[in-house]
């Protein structure tokens, strides 16, 4: 067992090195984007993390992992952001360009609430 695992590992490493040349640049770009994109998972009727703190300019993407549809709707009167209904595995993104605290909820299950703090 131990032997076959190490051989497998070597093979993957070799393969990785083989494609590294042209692939490296896009890898860096992806790493950079990562600082500007944050994920919120909707699972078990809960937004996770419940409070997300991000820098100005961050795009937050919500993904519904439940069997039941949910929405992401900002709780302020002007509804700063409002998703369509998200069925299983559907996503919604919003880019926060101003600092502030943005409470939101699921308009179908209003007991589900979350918050994005933009600094």
């Amino acid at each position: 067992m131990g032997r076959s695992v190490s051989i497998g590992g070597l093979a993957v490493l070799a393969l990785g090195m083989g494609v590294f040349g042209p692939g490296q640049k896009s890898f860096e770009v992806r790493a950079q984007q990562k600082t500007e994109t944050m994920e919120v998972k909707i699972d078990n009727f809960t937004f996770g993390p419940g409070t997300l703190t991000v820098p100005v300019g961050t795009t937050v993407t919500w993904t519904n992992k439940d069997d039941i549809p949910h929405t992401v709707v900002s709780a302020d009167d002007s509804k700063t952001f409002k998703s369509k209904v998200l069925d299983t595995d559907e996503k919604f993104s919003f880019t926060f360009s101003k600092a502030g605290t943005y409470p939101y909820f699921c308009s179908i299950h209003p007991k589900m609430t979350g918050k994005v703090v933009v600094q």
Partner: protein
Amino acid sequence: MAGKVRDEILHDHNHDGIDRRGFLKCMAWAGTGAFCVIQGGVLKSYSLSRLPAPGSKETMGELSFVQISDSHMGFNKPANADVAGTLKAAVDKINGLSAAPEFMLHTGDISHLSKPEEFDAVEQILKSAKPKDVFYVPGEHDVLNDDGKQFLERFGKSSKGGGWYSFEKKGVHFVGLVNVMNLKAGGLGTLGQEQLEWLEDDVKHLKTSTPIVVFAHIPLWSVYPEWGWGTEDSAQALAYLKKFGSVTVLNGHIHQTMQKVEGNVTFHTAASTAFPQPAPGKADSPGPMKVPAEQLKSVLGITDVNYVQGQHALGVVDSTLA
């Protein structure tokens, strides 16, 4: 079981056939596969899989109707991959009732995602039911994305404002309420001021002896606020109904049968025709409950309501699709 439930009415203070202990027993049995009979009185709730014998006293009355709920047409996850099939089974069950009900109430979540084809499918399936009239109120799944515009166009032509309305059948006053619109962050179901004012006016001139049946999607009593299973301003609505001798409140939303009696008001939630949900607090979330395929129909169902003139409340009979 029938022998056991016979001894439930020990302190029938209201002479309505229900005492506290009997009621608590009903609660304990609800949804677990047994049934509850209130003898010599009014509320007859066969929680699971057993209807009264055809032609028996329990099936007789001046008026009978059926409540169905939470069809969730379009849902296709493991908890029930064939919601059309189970809705058809509900229709078969309705068509098999010994006394044909006069009409049906659908207490919402007709569709899963408010799609036109989902509403179409439900309407098409319900056409094969013997009762031809269906009175709908929306669930939160029926008013997604368009604030209920499509629902109102289809089902709410004669309704007021956001879809509420009332009608009379054989001396019984029926009120359909909408508590799934404009929900607020952190809150429960909401009726709203405009609807409450309408309700107050709607029942103001009725005789106190008029039996009242109120139906709405989200329970009008606090079943489990932690999961949003309740309505913020239901107390105000119920205050307008206090003067009446018999009030029955029929809801859906929680995908299981449950009853509660408070004074002259009997609260009742119907099973879903699509998939079951866990008992309050018995799971991390109120998501669909997966049960073995062979058990599915035993946790889905319809509610048959039978009104006998002169009695205080309505007989409510739940039966499963098994």
